[in-house]
């Protein structure tokens, strides 16, 4: 179980809802993953319609919706999107995404921090997507974000934990959940993120773009569990040489 703001989740896998071949396949993948928190792009939603083919089924499955501000290039647009989503979806949860660079979709640290500060004041539960920058993550924590979502690698790149050493520092220093977002291309990447001590991971491309998204969702769920268990059990430290077992330590103990 882990907690974000006032909600407790048993699954540590968050899913994105984009890129699937159909809304139905997205729902099936969500179900197979056991995920309880799904992010969806506000710009994709037809907010004036009473029924939306993304939102309605997720609601029926009792999924916590995490609307995101993708498409926003600055704080102003992100805040506008957030207000729209809060009113239409009746949730103050928000995944804050500001990427002015449409090629690699790198998050803008300056606009993200400014928007996060304002959104918290406006009463939002803010989970910012950000670069794997330990100082930025502390700053986001200070302005009242409930979690941080640093990237493992560029969105959709499937490259795994390219930012590993920075993520280690972020996790070590964080007083709130660290959710590794973006770049996780294989279940083994997700397991590695959880072994580092991440509270959760968010996956979209690797599942949605897979030939069998439902099976892949299950595989990621297993990997997240395995990684978490390994983290709790305490990972063995890699050694340069084989270590002989303990006649000498037994002897030392007698001294």
């Amino acid at each position: 179980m882990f907690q974000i703001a006032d909600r407790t989740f048993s699954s540590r896998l968050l899913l994105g809802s984009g890129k699937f071949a159909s809304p139905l396949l997205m729902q099936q993948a969500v179900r197979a993953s056991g995920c309880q928190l799904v992010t969806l792009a506000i710009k994709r939603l037809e907010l004036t319609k009473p029924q939306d083919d993304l939102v309605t089924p997720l609601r029926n499955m009792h999924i916590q919706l995490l609307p995101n501000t993708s498409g926003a290039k600055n704080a102003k647009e992100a805040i506008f999107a957030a207000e729209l989503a809060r009113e239409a979806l009746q949730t103050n949860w928000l995944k804050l995404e500001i990427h002015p660079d449409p090629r690699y979709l790198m998050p803008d640290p300056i606009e993200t921090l400014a928007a996060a500060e304002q959104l918290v004041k406006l009463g939002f539960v803010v989970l910012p997507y950000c670069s794997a920058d330990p100082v930025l993550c502390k700053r986001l924590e200070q302005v009242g974000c409930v979690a941080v979502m640093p990237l493992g690698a560029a969105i959709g790149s499937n490259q795994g934990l390219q930012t590993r050493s920075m993520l280690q520092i972020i996790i070590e220093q964080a007083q709130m959940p660290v959710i590794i977002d973006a770049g996780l291309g294989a279940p083994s990447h997700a397991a590695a993120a959880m072994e580092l001590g991440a509270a959760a991971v968010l996956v979209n491309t690797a599942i949605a773009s897979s030939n069998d998204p439902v099976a892949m969702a299950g595989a990621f769920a297993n990997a997240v569990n395995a990684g978490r268990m390994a983290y709790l059990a305490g990972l063995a430290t890699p050694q340069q040489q084989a270590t002989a077992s303990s006649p000498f330590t037994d002897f030392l103990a007698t001294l």
Partner: protein
Amino acid sequence: MSYHRQWQQQDWQALQLQSRNFSTAQVQAVLSQPKLTLQDFQALLSPAAEPLLSQMASKAQRLTRQRFGHTVQLFAPLYLSNLCANECTYCGFSLSQKVKRRTLSLSEIEQECLAIKALGIDQVLLVTGEHERKVGMDYFCDALPVIRRYFSSIQLEVQPLDTAEYQLLKQLGVDAVMLYQETYNSRAYQHYHLKGKKADMPWRLDAPDRVGQAGIDKIGLGILLGLTDWRADAMMLAQHLQYLQKQYWQSRFSLSVPRIRPCSGGSGVAYPISDKELIQLICAFRLFAPELEISLSTRESALLRQHVVPLAITSVSAGSKTQPGGYSVAPENLEQFSIDDSRTPQQVAAALMQQGLQPVWKDWDGYLGR
């Protein structure tokens, strides 16, 4: 430094020669690379790449799915006016063409918007001929607020404008500007564009710079296939794209590679490009620029669209009418070019779903980019 200056340093003939001077082994080597240079791209355009087309296609498809998922955007064009002060030998809207001219009034525009919305379309491409005086900024400033109310995304394909004008259009709701160069070969350009502002090639070449400077979200590039050697033209387009991506890092880019279609009064095609070559060109662009949006219009047949869309295409038009008033006001008028795929948006969407692709009707909103 504008693109025009960089373009002047290019040697068309050298590009044309180089693009035929690759071995299949070189193409094979390019296909195993994760990141492509301009020279790699040129190899993919070469005749030597043709035997490897199915490999190119499968790599293109993998990159497209990874970047854009199993989705394809749907849009429709809204022709506002066929008035044109240019003389372009391949176009049915040219000044000397004896076609009935029409510019939609505001109430006619509204009627067309409603008809397009009734088709299920939410993303629209506004098209006009190029008539600065009668269909210029004043007209756009009147029309845009009306159109903006109906659609989540507005793309614009009109005459090149200046930076301040683009800035104003951005505020009024333009999300993307399409500026098809037609050809980067100056001699061919002069040959086809006889009269009017369009004959000013540098003004057109630098227009994407001005859109980028104005901070409009998306810039559409394109060449009209059939005017001259497509390989050299594609190379210059790729160079242009690379230049713009570095210069305007906050802009998105889209590509369109229409082939000349028969139009009323138009001449024959001087440099025809085959279906196979068109697919090669599209796949080469996907491999060169995985983030590039690529659209395919109803100029192409339903059969070809069905096979090419899953490989590399991110947006398709559907239910298109290519004359002002074509959806409801005056459906009998002459069109700019004849379309080949006349399926309704719903039929196109159903066909996409059958191929495991999710049709996306909306992916943008009016508050973004203002």
